[in-house]
């Protein structure tokens, strides 16, 4: 499973989720993470057509999007969403 994270360095919601992301990365080393910056990685972000709310977590299996999680979530909520993807 691959999780694509789209965030911005100036976004407090993204900043406050940094610890959550790091904790899940440690707990689930079997998942692959790709992180894009909304401003600096415009070309990579554009195809995903995200809305105004960040961060965005795009879950892919076999290169196909199976789930999209938007906004700030607690550690347990995000982990649960990912486990159920």
């Amino acid at each position: 499973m691959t999780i694509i994270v789209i965030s911005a360095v100036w976004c407090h919601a993204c900043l406050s989720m940094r610890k959550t992301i790091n904790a899940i990365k440690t707990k689930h080393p079997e998942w692959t993470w790709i992180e894009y910056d909304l401003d600096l990685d415009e070309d990579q972000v554009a195809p995903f057509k995200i809305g105004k709310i960040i961060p965005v977590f795009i879950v892919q299996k076999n290169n196909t999007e199976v789930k999209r999680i938007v906004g700030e979530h607690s550690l347990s909520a995000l982990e649960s969403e990912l486990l159920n993807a």
Partner: protein
Amino acid sequence: MIYLDYSATTPLDPRVAAKWMDVETRVYANANSAHALGLASKAINDASLAVMAGFFGVPVESIIPTASAVEANNFALKGLALKYPKKRHVIVSALEHASLIGAAGYLAHQGYDVDTLPLTPQGLYDVEALDTLIRPDTLVVSLTAVDSETGSRQPIESCAERCRLHHVFFHTDLTQLVGKGSFDLSHVDLATVSAHKVYGPKGIGLLIKKPHVGIVPLLHGGHSVTPWRASTPPNGLLAAFAEALRLAHDEADQRLAIVQARHDQVIAGLRQQSRVTINQASQALPHFVNFSIVGTRPEEGLRYFSDHGICFSSKSACSGQDEKSVSVYAITGDEALAISSYRLGLSHLTTVTEIETFLSVLADYVGTL
């Protein structure tokens, strides 16, 4: 056009502009040059720095001119991080400007832990929470002095005092407070200031750094106005900023009285609109009026007002889930209010007629809903 967005930026005071032009055209030599004209420039700059130091009540060597408050915020966090690399923990608030969050976010990507100080139900910093958040490896606590959405004056003095007890650096972003209210920097280690928020020019800010604070410069290149930031001394900008601060000091009471009157006029008018909810924060400065029109999308509402010649703002551009305003949600606990909030920024330049026009257009807008 009617401008009601003075919290975003202010127009240049013509007296400040005159000072800027006078110095930049008459005392233009590089203040680092040893010749007579250079020495004259240095004397002018030293006088400007002395005015700034006096305004903030700090030693003159604490004044580090920067190109902006954005730079000062970045300088504070990254400069401290470079100086004290074993300290890997930072505390901020959800009310910070994007530049402060950006600097903290950059550090987070380098492996730093960043915690957020919670707010009380009144939307103020939970000062006592600092005792549990501060760790042995805490580098700095950085908290803005004023919530730029609701205008709540935050208890930075109490936070600074608490940090001093824990031997942790305290940085505050004074950008929204300078020229609007008083402050005490006795226990503050570093502070950020901007000229363009106080009727000065864009292109100059300050990092105030107390002498006991170590920091690594971000711009290297030798001694300039200070040893902490290299660049050709901007004589005119320094003089203009000093003049803007002098005017803010000398005219403080007069300006505040006008702003308070305009604030009261707006509030009285908003109370006549049943669809409007005033988001009144504790300890709010009268320069800010925050209100919600439930059921509206701020970007559409702002376009309506702009099309009718009135310019103001909503909440900050970055948001979390549901695009709700952290500030408004903190004081109301109401998501509908937090996703439909608007911010007026008032000034001593705001007129009674401008407020009347705003209220009239507001009534028309509400009538279209």
